């Protein structure tokens, strides 16, 4: 149990996907202007990450590896993610229209989010078991959502801040990311 907890903390905080692994930077800078949309995006990523991790782990362990075609992983994983995103979009639209209105526009963007494909690769490369895969996917998704939400809160304030003209917008967002990264270094001693 302790090891799983350590894995969760490591994925969510210590080796945070955005701040220390550089995965999912596009939505991090693109969708972090409003707190509400950042949280929705984070939730959508979390959902897809967990589903994609489990499905791709099962396919890799029971299909690709036994038949010696592990080199097909890149093609298979991206297809799994693309089709999962489609299925989830349809499913959410049928069952919960409110959730669809909140997450709908973010779902198609997730196909090309490297955080999702990244977590599926990390799971098989590290040789995780199914339970570990599940924990690492949830940890990665929670960490992603957390940092995205923090970033959007800061950027809402930055809108009204007096920033030098050359730094307005993206450059100052990169500086904020750097400071967030430094503060996340403190989690390094936790595990």
């Amino acid at each position, binding site marked *: 149990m302790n090891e799983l907890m350590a894995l969760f903390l490591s994925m969510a905080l210590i080796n945070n996907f955005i701040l220390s692994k*550089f995965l999912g930077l596009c939505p991090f800078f693109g969708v972090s202007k409003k707190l509400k949309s950042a949280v929705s995006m984070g939730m959508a990523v979390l959902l897809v990450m967990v589903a994609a991790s489990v499905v791709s782990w099962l396919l890799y362990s029971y299909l690709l590896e036994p038949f010696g075609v592990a080199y097909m992983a890149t093609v298979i994983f991206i*297809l799994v993610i693309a089709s999962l995103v489609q299925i989830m979009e349809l499913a959410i639209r049928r069952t919960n229209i409110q959730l669809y209105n909140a997450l709908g526009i973010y779902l198609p963007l997730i196909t090309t989010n490297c955080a999702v494909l990244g977590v599926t690769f990390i799971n098989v490369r590290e040789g995780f078991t199914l339970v570990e895969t599940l924990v690492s996917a949830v940890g990665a998704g929670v960490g992603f959502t957390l940092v995205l939400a923090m970033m959007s809160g800061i950027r809402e304030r930055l809108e009204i801040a007096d920033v030098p003209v050359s730094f307005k917008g*993206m450059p100052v967002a*990169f500086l904020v990311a750097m400071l967030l990264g430094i503060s996340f270094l403190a989690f390094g001693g936790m595990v």
Partner: protein
Amino acid sequence: MSVIENLKKGIMKSNPVLVLLLGLCPALAVSTSLDNAIGMTAAVMFVLINANLIVSIIRKWTPDRVRIPVFIVIIASLVTIVDLTIQAFSPDLSKSLGIFLPLIVVNCIILGRAEAFASKNSITDSLADALGMGLGFGLALLIISFFRQLLGTGTLELFGQTLLEVPGLLDNPMAIFILPMGAFLVMACLLAFLRYMGVIANE
């Protein structure tokens, strides 16, 4: 637009990393040394040029509704080729680029150029576009990794040869530049500098 214009626009005016802010993940993650930057650029350029070429060739026969999945499969196959080739011929490079090698699949530059340019333009134009975008990506990576390697380690190395050593920095390098945060810092200063100089527009 002429071939030359298509080639030129990717390098500065719509540089994928510095202006369009696409493909940030690999650009920031592997820019810890010049070697990595060059390796990554070569891999991305191979995929980008071939993807644009193939997409442009088949653009008239690709049904509109399934074009994105078709592009993704083409790109994923090309990435698999690059990944296996680098694993075979340069295991060290493969190790240091790590997970970012297979992740070229989801590099927004490649899918973006296939969808926005190659699916609508002739083969020559698409090739010029891919070459320009690839060079622009490489230029941005080289600039970022130049500062990160120089300030973070005090030396500048290229393929095992030392190009430059800064005496004071060598003993006390500014380690933050090698850490992930350093990439954000360099990127922030670089963007602000380019804006200040008027190379790219202010917001």
